[in-house]
């Protein structure tokens, strides 16, 4: 596969260099909302949507900033756009699905400070992707994030039934599990991506 083909970019973002398990982006929601599969799925969808919107806007902004040669404002612009996109999702969700809105709780506004989303915007700028590549990249990242969240939620639902030593309950055990998951995902490196 050519390194700049759309399919490769998608797969690379989704599994080979999975945002959560290989690049450590978006760990907070990964540990915070992965207790139940349903909330994990909804969180994944919300993140995917915000990622897509912010990726498209970031592409536009970067084009504009480069025209006027004021790239040092990039970070501030990106984060402002992401914050507005999150606000949009929040309002839509409050209107159409109040139950879901309550289930996600504090983690919904916190999508703003989800590094995976700013990460997508920054990486696509560094790698100088064109518009279609940006779309593939952000979709792949979103799918990868949702996949990691769902896998983790499945594991944690199983763990509810297991008896673990009291000393390892909570975050410690979750992190160990994440480590194992990450180890498993390293197997995807054989698909052709070099480790970033």
């Amino acid at each position, binding site marked *: 596969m050519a390194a700049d083909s759309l399919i490769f970019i998608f797969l690379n973002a989704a599994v080979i260099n999975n945002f959560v398990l290989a*690049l450590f982006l978006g760990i907070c929601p990964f*540990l915070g909302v992965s207790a139940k599969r349903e909330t994990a799925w909804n969180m994944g969808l919300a993140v995917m949507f915000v990622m897509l919107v912010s990726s498209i806007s970031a592409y536009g902004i970067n084009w504009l900033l480069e025209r006027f040669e004021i790239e040092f404002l990039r970070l501030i612009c990106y984060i402002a756009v992401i*914050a507005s996109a999150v606000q949009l999702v929040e309002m839509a969700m409050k209107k159409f699905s109040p139950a879901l809105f309550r289930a996600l709780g504090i983690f919904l*506004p916190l999508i703003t*400070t989800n590094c995976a989303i700013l990460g997508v915007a920054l990486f696509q700028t560094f790698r100088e992707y064109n518009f279609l590549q940006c779309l593939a990249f952000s979709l792949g990242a979103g799918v990868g994030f949702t996949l990691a969240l769902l896998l983790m939620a499945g594991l944690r639902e199983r763990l509810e039934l297991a008896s673990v030593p009291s*000393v390892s309950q909570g975050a410690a055990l979750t*992190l160990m599990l994440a*480590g*194992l998951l990450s180890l498993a995902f*390293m197997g995807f490196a054989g698909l052709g991506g070099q480790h970033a």
Partner: protein
Amino acid sequence: MSLPNQEEQVSMDTFLRGLWEENPVFVMLLGMCPVLAVSNSAINALAMGLATTFVLLCSSSLVSLLRKLIPKQVRIATYIVIIATFVTIVDYAIQAISLELYNALGAFIQLIVVNCVILGRAEAYASKQRLGATVINSLGMGAGFTIALLCLGTVREILGAGSLFGYSLFAENFQPWVVMILPPGGFFVLGGWLLAFNWYRQRRARKLLEQQGATAHGS
């Protein structure tokens, strides 16, 4: 976690709280992404810790100074813009000082913007406290964050590369555990530290309980 609503008197505790009782990484589990991602060597961990401390200190101070001027409805947006400004400064400064370090840390310098520790401090502490208390508290939090990063960075570098701050520690035939400097190692080492702290805390609680039982019997 105690969040003082009135203005706090500055004391030693203002600083020390960030180191242990409310350690951002080990206790509050905030700002995990950079902690896991750039702790693959001690020097990266130290640089990241210092950069974050600088941004934390500057942005909290500014938020604290402006706390009466910032309207409540747009406060989060304001905080983010303030934080982003300082991160841009740090980003360019590191690029000028050491390009090698800049490449090693990669996008994670710019990602300090979305570090929840910083926004959390601005929202929960700096927006309510006077400048003096804020400065000391942010220094404590920054130190706690840096120490946590170093805890991970040293363990991962020693086990994963057999060196510390780039100096080789073991004899030639040491077989490094490469997995420790790869992504899974980050999760494992942080999990290990949390296990150790849990164990210590449980043991202390048990001891305290036994002591109380003994004094109750005595009287």
